[in-house]
């Protein structure tokens, strides 16, 4: 069962990478495009536990770093922050409520984008980068949240949430 889940995860990550590199440029609106990696990661936060999401943050971040043009490691950092914060919020909220789920997806993407932007600003020593890109990351986060909100229903079928089992007797 666990092996099957791992294979499904690998397939999902590979498909996301291909779609992000080839399809996403065609669905960008006014130079604003969704980030499927952040979207996928936000969805996985809803499905997995703390430790698992941290591990996934490393894997997805590393893969994103391979296809990005920033200093190596920044993408991993940008995913680690939501991986550390969001599981606690998810635990205390009702993710079956569509509005709550959408807000969590949006916050997750925004947090990842903002961490990346802040890291770039610190490394490049140019705080104005945050002012220039802030509106763009808000728009991208919203777009990502909309796309991942739709994809949630597909992901639920592909990677079912691990339910807690109680002993009745």
């Amino acid at each position, binding site marked *: 069962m666990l092996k099957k889940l791992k294979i499904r995860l690998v397939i999902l990550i590979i498909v996301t990478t291909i779609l992000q590199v080839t399809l996403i440029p065609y669905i960008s609106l006014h130079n604003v495009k969704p980030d499927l990696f952040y979207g996928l990661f936000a969805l996985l936060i809803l499905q997995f536990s703390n430790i698992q999401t941290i591990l996934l943050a490393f894997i997805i971040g590393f893969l994103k770093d*391979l*296809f*990005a043009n*920033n200093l190596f490691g920044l993408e991993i950092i940008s995913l680690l922050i939501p991986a550390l914060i969001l599981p606690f919020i998810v635990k205390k909220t009702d993710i079956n409520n569509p509005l709550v789920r959408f807000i969590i997806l949006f916050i997750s993407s925004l947090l990842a984008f903002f961490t990346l932007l802040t890291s*770039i600003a610190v490394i490049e020593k140019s705080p104005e980068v945050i002012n220039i*890109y802030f509106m763009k990351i808000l728009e991208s986060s919203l777009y990502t949240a909309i796309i991942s909100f739709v994809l949630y229903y597909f992901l639920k079928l592909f990677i079912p949430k691990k339910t807690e089992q109680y002993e009745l007797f």
Partner: protein
Amino acid sequence: MLLNTTPFYSFLRNSVISISKPVLETSHFLFFNLTDGIRRLSNYAEIARMNEQLQLEVNRLRVDRIKYEELQDENIRLRRLLNFKETLKHDHISAQVIGRDVSSLSNWLILNFGYSDGARKDMSLIAPGGLVGKIISVGNTTSRAILIIDRQSKVSSIIQQSRDLGIVEGCGNGFLKLNYLNINSTAKVGDAVITSGFGGVYPKGLPIGTISLIGTEKNGLHLFAKIKPFVDFSKLEEVLCLKN
């Protein structure tokens, strides 16, 4: 600069992109045709096609006009100097765009054109509209190129009409900014901006864009100009790599 990552990571990135080249090429071909098909099927298909043709024609004529004016200016200057010697000629190789950057904060391309095809670092890329960018990293069968609209891109340029020099930098939002423009510049909105050739990377005379706004920097020492690029970077399918 963030572009200067260690050789190991650069090698790793190039290797991964080279390995995934067949997959990227196939999926790019599929998605390009799919999106193109949907676009053509829509109600505005006819208008879109006509608009596309007209846009290409406008771009071609604009480039022709700029080239003509540039040649004319060059001719006059060289005649004055009585030292006419040089005519710009660049050999080029065609390359296909097979992938884009995964981050929303940067703008670069993956080309199906590597070291074995003749790709070299810092080769300039052009499209029918004008300058696109340059190659920043070369793998065996693929290469990565930075677009001039990326925030890390800098191009030494000149305003065609007023002959004022400046540095064109990417704004990250699809527009460009011409910095360090002389405070006494006579440049005006609508003027064309071309490469100056001073940076040593881009050849002289490649069209970049037109000035859409001029303002004074906060320090009051320089002017700046907002530039609308000639190339539509969202629709790049093929580029020409200029051999240095």
